[in-house]
């Protein structure tokens, strides 16, 4: 049975892009910002230590909304989805996340990052 939407179209995740029209892929290598490396390290460590599974992270990336999915960069998508995953699992709490975000914002306003400095969260 193929489940369909009321208009008869099949369910197709907005992340399931194989075969859709797209621009050329830029194959040149690029460097990663420090915050992107930190996000990568945190996700890999927490996965390796068994707190979360990669499949859960993928599911949360598929749940961030079509516009977000299309416009966020790779690691922006990763951190947004990882935050909701950690909330869902009770590993962090909404108060902690809110307080940390406010903390980072205060620091940002006190000393705005220069163009060359790392702009990411810490």
């Amino acid at each position, binding site marked *: 049975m*193929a489940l369909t939407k009321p208009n008869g179209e099949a369910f197709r995740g907005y992340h399931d892009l194989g*075969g859709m029209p797209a621009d050329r892929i830029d194959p040149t290598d690029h460097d990663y910002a420090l915050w992107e490396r930190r996000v990568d390290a945190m996700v890999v460590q927490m996965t390796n230590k068994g707190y979360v*599974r990669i499949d859960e992270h993928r599911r949360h990336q*598929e749940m961030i909304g079509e516009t977000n999915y299309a416009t966020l960069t790779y690691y922006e998508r990763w951190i947004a989805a990882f935050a909701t995953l950690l909330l869902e699992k009770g590993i962090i709490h909404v108060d902690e996340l809110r307080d940390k975000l406010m903390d980072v914002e205060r620091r940002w306003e006190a000393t705005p990052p220069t163009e060359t400095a790392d702009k990411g969260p810490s």
Partner: protein
Amino acid sequence: MRFQVGDRVKTLSVNPPGHVRTPYYARGKPGVIERFAGHFQNPEELAYGRYYGGTLELFRVRFRQVDLWPDYDGAQDDTLDLEIPEHWLVPDHSAQR
């Protein structure tokens, strides 16, 4: 093992909601078992935090590009390999290819 190398198979033609790893373009398509790729837990369940289920057999399945893309204009014998778990595969007893 549910399938042997060389078996003709077809992927399920279903489009369920949830975390699904079989790409949309490869559903309901004929292919051939290229190799057994090991036992793995079901990512569709792991995605929802259910870590303790059994394992499924994973197969590398070889598809003809012309079967995947109706407007494919490359070589007729071009192929694509995808790894698909057993529960997405059924035997294909239709036409010989």
